[in-house]
């Protein structure tokens, strides 16, 4: 393989990988097997943020006395097949679609979420939470919590 041909070949590998990575970074998971754009911490969270989270009302058929929000429920009711950061992006995707009224396209995310419940049936709410990022970390208090949808794993016939 002549020297210049190798040079161009190696250079093109990097350029192709850059565009592949850039394209893949647009997908929900932000990466694909073997294509890793390393786009980490690219979006700075706003001062007053709005997030979507899951609030568990009933679990395993038992009514919970005080419903638990997702970050605390993660350890108790979810198997760790999906790492925590990806749960957040799956739930955010569900919440945004519902909030913008296109609740049609969330089927696959709901299914991914419900597949990871440790036991069924589960009744849970998608909640839109408004909070000051720093304050929420310090005290855990939120400015406003609004439930925008309620789901029951039994309805979807899972």
């Amino acid at each position, binding site marked *: 393989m002549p020297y210049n041909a*190798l040079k161009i070949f190696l250079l093109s590998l990097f350029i192709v990988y850059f565009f592949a990575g850039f394209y893949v*970074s647009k997908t929900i998971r932000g990466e694909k097997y073997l294509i890793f754009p390393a786009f980490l911490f690219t979006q700075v969270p706003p001062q007053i943020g709005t997030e979507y989270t899951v609030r568990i009302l009933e679990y395993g058929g038992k009514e919970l006395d005080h419903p638990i929000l997702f*970050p605390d429920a993660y350890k108790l009711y979810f*198997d760790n097949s999906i790492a925590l950061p990806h749960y957040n992006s799956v739930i955010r995707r569900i919440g945004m679609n519902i909030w913008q009224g296109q609740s049609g396209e969330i089927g696959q995310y709901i299914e991914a979420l419900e597949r990871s419940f440790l036991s069924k049936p589960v009744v849970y709410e998608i909640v839109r939470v408004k909070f000051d990022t720093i304050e929420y970390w310090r005290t855990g208090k939120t400015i406003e919590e609004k439930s925008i949808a309620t789901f029951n794993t039994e309805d979807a016939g899972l």
Partner: protein
Amino acid sequence: MKSNPYIKKFTAYIYDFPSLESFAKEERPFEKAKNIVRYLYYFLALKSTTMLFAGDTYFGTSENFSPVWSTLWVNLLSPADAITIIQFFFLASAFIGSFFYWNRIARIIAFLGVFELHALLSSFGIEVDHAWYPWLFVTFFLIFLPDTRAQTRHSLEGRKFFLLVFLAVQASVFFTYSMSGFGKIYGAINQIIGGGMHAFAPEALALHVAHWLASTHSVSLLGPFIIDHPWFGWPLFVGTIYLQFFALWILFKPSLHKLWAAGLVFSHIGIYVIMGLTYLSSAPLLILLFFDSPFHKPGTSWRKILLDLPIFGSLLRLFMDFRLSKMKK
């Protein structure tokens, strides 16, 4: 198309990297590069033994075992057998690489060892393993090294090939950092256009830390300090973006190889101390590939190093040209 002088001047400035020809003429760069390649495989061999000792702490529970396409053959056996086979294949391939690093087939086997290990680690849950990506790219590019019998003296051509591929190996490590830096800058531009918080704002790091620690329910040593004193985090975050984005630029500035690699190693320590994330798997590559870089001319003056710094170097150069032209008048 007669090349435009300005473009020529600009590319010359960025790519003022002496052609590999000049490096290939000397004896030392080639010997150094060969040494480093050998130590890369030695380190891989060491990792393969410690992976064995760590046993199954690396592999998730076998229930959510969904093999990626490169380990589909694993469905014929149970996940436990697959783990043992791949661990031993990785061990054998790493030692084959260490002993016969001058032979391309051995290097291909070593790459396959890392490739299968990474595939296996990515087969648990839907999480793709990030730790072994740097080694995957490095062992892939190492395959293209020309076959260099350890004792034979090589032609100029052979040495040029070797150094070119070695540069590509170094580039594969800095490439990931440049992508990461580019991602942050690209994200910042979007956020600046969209108004509101962005990466270059003083509170950026404090917000990142608060959001990350809250959403992942984790703690870190200096996280609370950064949240309470956002201004302290400003130079750290902008400095990390600067270090990461210009990594590929520094690839062509060998005088800065060692300092830049040390800077990136510090950024990993910073990420651990502030965000609680232990991502150390590319630190050994930064250290082995850049701390004794074959392209670094010993005895380069501090002035040259300062002039090579991205942005600040060109500002300094402009300032010196300006002062020079004023003195001439």
